[in-house]
């Protein structure tokens, strides 16, 4: 399958701003999916995108798969219902830093704890893009936003540390300046049975860059490339595979229990 068959072209061009990192994520995702479909490793009719609210959460609307664009912060809770009710679905959750870790933080840690079998791609642009640039729980200390005009007084989350603290077995961090690696990470995440979390540092030129001396999308990518490293380097953000373990996914536990109780191999 060609990735072009996965785009709702009638909706293009999309609403994202010029140079928005979410666009690159969309691009990488549909190619990764197309490869998986092509290889017969996934079935497009059983692959579902779920998102919350935010610029990043708009991506599913451009992909020609079943998709559920939910409420702000809650995609993982919706995904929990989808996956448990139909374990055959392969679920990808597209979310933003605000969606996943501000209002949605609780669902994030509980999905990680339960080891819900979903692939979470968090477009972490360090800001609330959709609403015009307010501080987010990943905005760096001191950074400017429309609600931190004097600089952000709050320390940010390290999202990977957070989900690992909650028990997530498969955790990676990449950036939109690393699209090839990101594509491979998505492949890995789709292959893992269980909760996979990919923290994608991404750029919001419109609402983050402008206020924080990163004038163009290119400067932002330059920054991302220069300030990240796949090794533990002082002053750099660690990217790469941060954890990759195997644990039985939640739906399997639940359905094994059902089979045991109902005596039905098919789980009813």
């Amino acid at each position, binding site marked *: 399958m060609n990735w072009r068959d996965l785009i709702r072209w009638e909706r293009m061009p999309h609403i994202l701003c010029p140079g928005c990192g979410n666009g690159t994520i969309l691009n990488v995702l549909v190619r990764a999916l197309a490869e998986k479909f092509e290889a017969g490793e996934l079935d*497009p009719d059983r692959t579902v995108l779920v998102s919350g609210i935010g610029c990043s959460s708009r991506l599913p609307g451009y992909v020609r798969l*079943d*998709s559920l664009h939910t*409420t702000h912060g809650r995609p993982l*809770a919706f995904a929990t219902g989808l996956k448990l009710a139909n374990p055959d679905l392969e679920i990808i959750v597209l979310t933003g830093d605000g969606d996943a870790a501000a209002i949605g933080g609780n669902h994030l840690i509980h999905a990680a704890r339960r080891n819900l079998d979903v692939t979470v791609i968090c477009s972490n642009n360090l800001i609330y893009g959709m609403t015009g640039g307010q501080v987010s729980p990943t905005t760096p200390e001191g950074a400017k936003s429309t609600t931190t005009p004097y600089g952000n007084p709050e320390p940010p989350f390290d999202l990977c540390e957070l989900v690992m603290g909650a028990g997530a077995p498969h955790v990676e961090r990449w950036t939109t300046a690393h699209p090839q690696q990101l594509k491979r990470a998505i492949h890995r995440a789709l292959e893992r049975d269980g909760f996979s979390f990919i923290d994608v540092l991404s750029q919001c030129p419109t609402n983050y860059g402008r206020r924080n001396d990163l004038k163009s999308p290119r400067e932002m990518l330059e920054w991302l490339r220069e300030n990240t490293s796949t090794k533990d380097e002082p002053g750099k953000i660690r990217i790469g595979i941060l954890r990759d373990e195997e644990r039985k996914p939640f739906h399997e536990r639940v359905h094994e229990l*059902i089979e045991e109780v109902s005596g039905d191999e098919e789980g009813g």
Partner: protein
Amino acid sequence: MSGRVEFLQGNEACAEGAIAAGCRFFAGYPITPSTEIAERMSERLPEVGGVYVQMEDEIGSLAAVIGASWAGVKAMTATSGPGFSLMQEHMSFAAMTETPCVVVNVQRGGPSTGQPTKASQSDVMQARWGGHGDYEVVALAPSTVQEMYDLTVECFNWAERLRVPAVLLADEVVGHMRERVILREDVETVDRELPEEGEEVREPFPLEPDDLVPPMPVFGRGHRVHVTGLTHDERGYPATDDPEVHRRLVRRLCNKVRKRARRIHESVGYDLIERESDLALVAYGGCARTVLEAAEELNATVFRPRVIHPFDPDLVRRLLDGYEVLVVEMNLGQYVEMIERALDAECVHALEYPGGYPPTPERVIEEAERLQG
């Protein structure tokens, strides 16, 4: 009615009704006085191949239920006031995305944590107005344990028929009492209409579907639909800037319920015991039991709706015009406001009775007598 005779708690009967209606997914968060529903579901669902999951909160519970519904499974949650408040954003989402689902609210005394273990009917208006935006739900109020069973089935059926969230507006009286209940085997169940499997559905939200309700393209069957809580066009695509699209969408969402008000009332049924009297008593849910008893004593007419929403002012007018009407509720006056819209407000009186228990029949009789002079 054929089926197994049992002596159950209302909450247990509700769980059994759900399973009889075809519910195979329950996501919830415990809260008194609804918890026994979750507890029984956690035991019963695995037996019938269904999924029970306890979520991290009520917001997540209704989200998971909606998710399960889009996976094609009949799904339900149960809660009480505080949890119902937390579910309001998703009530609104379910209405907007036309997701069939059932939410049980076993009402307890509010506001806030209030009286966690005591009965109340103070979430009646919330069931309709709790979420933001214009939408309509179906809400039914059971007065007996048998109705906890039967009306749960009705909730599922109306949810599936209309693709709306349906609320079982129960209360602690019926939730916690035990009574005989026939676990009917002959329940009529309704399943949502589905598009042909494997067919891409290009207009999942047509402007004027048959009966105002489009078939539901559940996920995993090749329909390739996009579902969003944003205002969307026929294709399901966001169209948030077009007033006409919004107007037509929300009008349809409301009309599919409003235009059926009479049919729903007739199909679910109501009690009308007409007596030669100037006085009509109105009550519903757990409180109606008192009022039925008092009305006999008073030789007054009684109207007991089972359908709380949608309200049908014409029906009420037809049934109760000309009476002095006394509405008895375990709250500070909620359903009575609807009755006031339908009738001459001057003929409408209320016995507001919060506090945790229905009034005794004596209390109702006293009030009626005071009213009559």
